[in-house]
């Protein structure tokens, strides 16, 4: 929790504040539509639950790492 650890965080995260963000949108498509509407660079991902929602296979996949 020491704040000194966060100095490193600042370096990488600073690039986020340097200009308008370039966004990858995973989930609700309306967010990508809105971002595109006000001219932000955005790539939408048509996300689907892993293994089509099969929890057992999804668990297996997370253990096999991908």
């Amino acid at each position, binding site marked *: *929790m020491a*704040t000194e*650890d*966060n*100095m*490193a*965080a*600042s*370096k*990488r*995260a*600073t*690039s*986020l*504040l*340097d*200009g*308008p*963000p*370039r*966004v*990858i*949108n*995973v*989930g*609700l498509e*309306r*967010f990508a539509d*809105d*971002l595109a509407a*006000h001219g*932000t*660079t955005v*790539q*939408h*991902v*048509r*996300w*689907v*639950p*892993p293994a089509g929602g099969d929890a057992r296979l999804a668990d297996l996949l*997370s253990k096999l790492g991908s």
Partner: protein
Amino acid sequence: MLIIRNEIRKGLYLDSVALMRAARAIAALPGVEEAGMMMGTPANKEILREAGVLDEAGAQAGPGDLVIAVRVRDADAAAAAMTEARRLLDQPRRSEAGDASWQPRTLRGAVEQMPDANLALISVPGDFAVAEARKGLRRGLNVMIFSDNVPLGQEIALKREARDLGLLVMGPDCGTAIIGGVPLAFANSVPRGDVGIVGASGTGIQEVSCLIANGGRGISHAIGTGGRDLTQEVGGITTFAAIDLLDKDPATRHIVLISKPPAREVAKQVLARVGKSAKPFTLCLIGSRPDAALPANVRFAGTLAEAAEAVLGRKLAAYQGALPKPASAAKLIRGLFCGGTLCSEAQMILQRSGLDVVSNVPVPGAERLGAKRNAHMMIDLGDDEFTRGRPHPMIEPATRDAPLAEALADETVGVVVLDVVLGWGSHPDPAGQLVRALGNWAGTGPMIVASVVGTEADPQVRSSQVRKLADAGIILAASNASATEIALQCVR
């Protein structure tokens, strides 16, 4: 008696693509039993013959000739088929709209499409959110997690990993951020300026950023931290990272921190960190008073409006109009909120004035709904129990219609307090929707006091929304805190 008709187009070459599709279109015409369009090679003519569409003329075609062949009911159908065939062959080819732009199914695929991406905005169901966020971090992306219902343990692990990688995790349950002037998820269009915001609350960030913007100052960045960041367990990882970022950012000259009261130990560390900064801070801990001495560069605000006033250096406009008194029996305030923080703030204000408050999300000192009679009821309509299987009221204001009708028909209710939240992500016309839902209300039953969170630059245009509400007889307050104070005065 079916007839076969062939036409030869000499020297016309078209890809089998276009030909097969055109043939299908012809075959679908009335009176056409079968159709074929093929180049006149021996093999193709054999196919046409076997399909029963080849005649003498077609049989004479050479490999470089196009054969249009139909088997039809009568001469009229043949003529129509040939006309359509010619039309299809001669129309200019047009590429499908938008060049069938590829939408990846995975974050990995998206990064390949946009290698210089620097932020992943994640709004998948909570069970999957952290796995997706981790994929983003491992590809060097900062992350904003809109999703809620993320297990606390996962949040902690993720934020620690992000810290080690030097990346920012906004969220989970982060509904609002403004980065580099860009509103993300539910956020407002505000002018760029020198005020930075770090907020654990979406609508809290929204109201403060709008009040500051409408007061003439601008926002550099508004960084969301998620609702649990300042708990003991998470320890403020994102809050501290955000403070560091804004402290270093040359464009930021004043920083506002918005939260509900944090864990004691964390609060101490936040104050210690803030005190090290050369920049002025406004600490908005809704409904609390700080128990430690504040560093010299820190001003304290107990409401969102007070935070904006601290930044602007002046008080917001007070309500000037007359305040009608409700009927003597109608002494209760009913609050129907889209924004959770606005609901909490209202509860705190009423409690501070000694009133009994109940809510579906009670703040310390308030009780659960139904626990008390004759209590003032503050409802957060965006809470899980209301949004399961239904859209959030900010997206679909009609979700508020039924509770509103019930409140207006309740003889014990003297005043209804509402928030109308504009901006990206919100409904295109919340005020219009509200006015329609009110129907014949004007002048009867309880009063309605509303605050409008928004700016002129928002898609809904704040002034036009305000006008619709005012024309309907709704009392407009400058802020949620002000609306609550007005309601208080009305029932006293």
